[in-house]
């Protein structure tokens, strides 16, 4: 007999760099920066005669009176506490609760006591068994999955998702990453062998999302360019598809590693497909730290020059940075600042080194007695960490990071990097070059809300007003950079939301030198918990 299933993506404990909490900060309804792909995917893997509905709590409240017989909960580590609360609430009224997703897969012991069924790993290979068991009522307490072939994954059930409240859609093109950065849990979750969807599958997902109305899509890869040959086959398909969209092209964002910049054909293909922004884990300009953490692809190259290659191809870069490797000394904050300011990168995601549970770094810290009991293992929580850093006390780390974050996001410093990006950026490429004049007139309602947020941001202080007029003056000479400027400005609004939210925004700390900030510890704030993205990708 068919069942009813309520799939829930619970709210996080804190905002993140790529989130969209800034909508609520400015009085709009909840929103997602990138639509949640887990819930529509699980919905597609469930029996299609079941009565399925989705709640994304980033967007709207959970209906705790929902009559579904089964509740399915997904989530990442930042959602862990809320996953447990939601599970307990539904179990208390007798609903069968199934939990899966990245956090459940990487830290199963945290969630096992709170559900009827725990799913560890990717669902595709075990979906038939799981749902048949749930239908019969004779289910196991835990299902552990092998790594599935994803070329047979069904089309996600986007028809069930609140798409009007998400800025970008999401398509997963591959799973796994061949690199082995010490602090990253992707390998433990998805393996080192990268498994791809076929170009046809990806295009079918894009067709669906285009019809819904999305014009920007996040390609959820850990490292889109890791397998060059496959990435190029996908890019060729994307370029052909994107160049023939009836109502204008789609802008793609993804995560890549810096080594892609040395492949001229890859760079051209990224630009021609309509890639407009990439996230790159740069981590640190300190070469000894890069070696220590096994970020080999970043060693022995000029990072600034490679970053510029992307920008010259019309692709903005968001760079993930980490401080607190064993080879970092107290001058690292100034070193990171100087590095950031010489790059054509407006948005940096910054945080202290943390050791997520399943990583080799966690094992090394545990073996050397350097794990702290009460710290956060969420990458990019600027004033918190779960490890004892080698050359800094916790206070020194917090003070230094607060100085670094505030210094980099002072409107004046942000304007300088925006202008550097504008000056470096090449002309619009691929589908956007031919669509300049026919750019879509009219905005989706959520995009119009974003415009209102930006209007208010610009007026927030004389410094922000000046930042905007300086950026506009630079942009007037390079009109092609308009979309990149708008995107960066929106991300800046979200960064300010994060820092405001955690009491981390305190521009006065930048009036002292980095070294005194480190010595003094955090000036203010440090009361809340704000996740600001960290890196762990690309």
């Amino acid at each position, binding site marked *: 007999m068919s069942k009813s299933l309520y799939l829930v993506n619970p709210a996080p404990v804190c905002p993140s760099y790529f989130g969209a909490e800034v909508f609520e900060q400015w009085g*709009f309804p909840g929103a997602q920066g990138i639509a949640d792909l887990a819930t529509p995917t699980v919905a597609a893997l469930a029996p299609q005669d079941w009565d399925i509905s989705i709640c994304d709590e980033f967007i709207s409240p959970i209906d705790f009176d929902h009559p579904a017989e089964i509740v399915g909960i997904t989530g990442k580590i930042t959602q862990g506490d809320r996953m447990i609360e939601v599970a307990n609430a539904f179990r208390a009224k007798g609903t069968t609760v199934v939990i899966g997703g990245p956090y459940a897969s990487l830290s199963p012991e945290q969630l096992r006591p709170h559900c009827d069924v725990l799913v560890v790993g990717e669902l595709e290979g075990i979906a038939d068994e799981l749902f048949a068991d749930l239908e019969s009522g004779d289910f196991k307490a835990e299902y552990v999955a092998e790594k599935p072939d994803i070329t047979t994954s069904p089309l996600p059930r986007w028809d069930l998702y609140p798409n009007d409240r998400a800025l970008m859609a999401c398509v997963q093109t591959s799973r796994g990453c061949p690199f082995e950065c010490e602090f990253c849990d992707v390998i433990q979750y998805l393996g080192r062998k990268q498994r791809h969807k076929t170009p046809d599958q990806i295009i079918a997902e894009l067709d669906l999302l285009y019809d819904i109305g999305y014009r920007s899509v996040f390609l959820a890869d850990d490292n889109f360019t890791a397998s060059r040959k496959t990435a190029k086959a996908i890019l060729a398909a994307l370029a052909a598809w994107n160049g023939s969209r009836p109502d204008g092209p789609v802008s793609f964002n993804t995560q890549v590693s810096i080594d892609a910049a040395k492949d001229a054909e890859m760079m051209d293909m990224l630009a021609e497909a309509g890639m407009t922004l990439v996230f790159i884990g740069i981590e640190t300009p300190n070469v000894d730290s890069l070696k220590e953490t096994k970020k080999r692809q970043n060693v022995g190259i000029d990072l600034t020059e490679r970053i510029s290659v992307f920008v010259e191809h019309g692709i903005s870069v968001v760079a993930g940075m980490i401080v607190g490797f064993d080879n970092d000394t107290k001058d690292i904050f100034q070193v990171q600042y100087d590095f950031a300011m010489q790059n054509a990168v407006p948005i940096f995601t910054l945080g202290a080194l943390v050791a997520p549970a399943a990583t080799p770094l966690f094992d090394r810290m545990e073996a050397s007695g350097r794990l702290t009991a009460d710290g956060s293992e969420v990458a990019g929580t600027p004033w918190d960490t779960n490890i004892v850093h080698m050359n800094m006390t916790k206070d020194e780390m917090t003070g230094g990071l607060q100085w670094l974050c505030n210094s980099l996001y002072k409107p004046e410093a942000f304007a300088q990097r925006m202008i550097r990006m504008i000056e470096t950026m090449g002309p619009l490429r691929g589908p956007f070059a031919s669509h300049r004049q026919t750019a879509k*007139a009219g905005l989706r*309602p959520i995009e*119009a809300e974003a415009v*209102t947020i930006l*209007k208010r941001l610009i007026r927030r202080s004389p410094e922000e007003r000046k930042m905007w007029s300086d950026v506009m003056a630079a*942009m007037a000479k390079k009109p092609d950079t*308009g979309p990149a*400027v*708008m995107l960066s400005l929106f991300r800046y609004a979200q960064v300010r939301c994060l820092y405001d939210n955690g009491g981390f925004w305190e521009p006065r700390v930048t009036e002292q030198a980095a070294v005194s900030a480190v010595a003094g510890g955090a000036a203010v704030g440090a009361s809340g918990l704000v996740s600001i993205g960290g890196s762990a990708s690309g």
Partner: protein
Amino acid sequence: MSDSPAQAVLEILARETGVPPTKINEATELVGDLGIDSPRALQVLVEIEDKLDIEVNDEEVANLRTVGDILEVVATRFPA
């Protein structure tokens, strides 16, 4: 000071786009004819709002396609 809110709007559009005010009318399309991209649109809105001391709300922003659309919104704030 401009004579009327509508005139103020036209002046701002002309200054921001470099198109002479005489070539701008109600039917002029913001994107197609004036080539206003999103940052420029943001700038124009901020200037109009500051000059006329109004706020164009997000629903109105979503529906702006022509110069006439802007003038219509402005007219609702300054009834004759």
